[in-house]
């Protein structure tokens, strides 16, 4: 089944060259320090002793999906065909949708449409008993980790879009600490198990460095 999820091509991810950073980067950095609580999330993402890695990645992936689903649900009124005619993460990164299954040729679409495709696609994966078994004793498929990597890589793009295009609204709704905490937890998790390639994280690299610098 790896042909559905794997693939070395990276046509859905288009870095644009030579475009200067926007000034909104500053605001991101100013607010990046605000997070919830003081507990050790870095320790909480680590594989518990004796736990199966697939099981651990599965439960956390569902957790992050739920968080991102709710988070995006708070800003849907600001993320429209008009405000976000393309799915982007700042001026340098633009995403085109393809799932490798029903949509093979990447399509350029608005952010709300892209995110709707993306979240529906993830939901379908999580719902698939062959990929995410929910009954005790049923094993994960052999390629489970590569499926999870694809899901997490795509979920990251929703964070990237929200941080770059909707951070102002997030601050207006006073949910920046909640977003930062969710994202920090997500980053700790993908770093711990090497689940997303560094070049995919580039749109938020500066923020990632800042969020994770204090407790490295």
């Amino acid at each position, binding site marked *: 089944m790896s042909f559905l999820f794997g693939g070395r091509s990276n046509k859905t991810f288009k870095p644009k060259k030579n475009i200067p950073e926007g000034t909104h980067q500053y605001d991101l950095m100013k607010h990046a320090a605000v997070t919830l609580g003081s507990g050790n999330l870095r320790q*909480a993402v680590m594989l518990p002793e004796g736990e199966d890695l697939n099981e651990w990645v599965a439960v956390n992936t569902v957790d992050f999906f739920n968080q991102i689903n709710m988070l995006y649900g708070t800003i*849907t009124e600001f993320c429209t065909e008009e405000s976000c005619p393309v799915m982007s993460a700042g001026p340098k990164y633009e995403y085109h949708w393809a799932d490798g299954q029903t949509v093979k040729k990447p399509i350029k679409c608005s952010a*709300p449409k892209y995110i*709707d495709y993306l979240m529906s696609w993830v939901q379908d994966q999580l719902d698939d008993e062959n990929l995410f078994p*929910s009954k005790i004793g049923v094993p994960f498929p052999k390629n489970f980790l590569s499926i999870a990597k694809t899901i997490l890589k795509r979920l990251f793009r929703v964070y990237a879009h929200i941080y770059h295009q909707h951070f102002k609204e997030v601050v207006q709704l006073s949910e920046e600490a909640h977003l930062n905490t969710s994202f920090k937890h997500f980053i700790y998790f993908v770093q711990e198990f090497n689940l997303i390639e560094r070049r995919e994280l580039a749109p938020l690299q500066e923020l990632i460095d800042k969020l994770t610098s204090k407790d490295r």
Partner: protein
Amino acid sequence: LRPEGRLKNYSPQAFKFYMEQHVENVLKACKERVTRRFQLEREMNKVGLSEDAQQQMRRMLNQKESNYIRLRRAKMRRDMFETI
């Protein structure tokens, strides 16, 4: 205008409450799991089990923990999709 889709609106309050609870639960679950493991080791020391029996007990606890997070995932999924 938004395209018709499966995405749902959430109030910021709902998201914030969820996140606050969630982070607390994640940290608590992590701590409690370590504690259970500790407790098992202590109990086993007290009764002086053989090395084989100890391994067996550890495997049983691991399996129980693993089953627990699987059921939690299944439950989370159901809760999430029932409301959509």
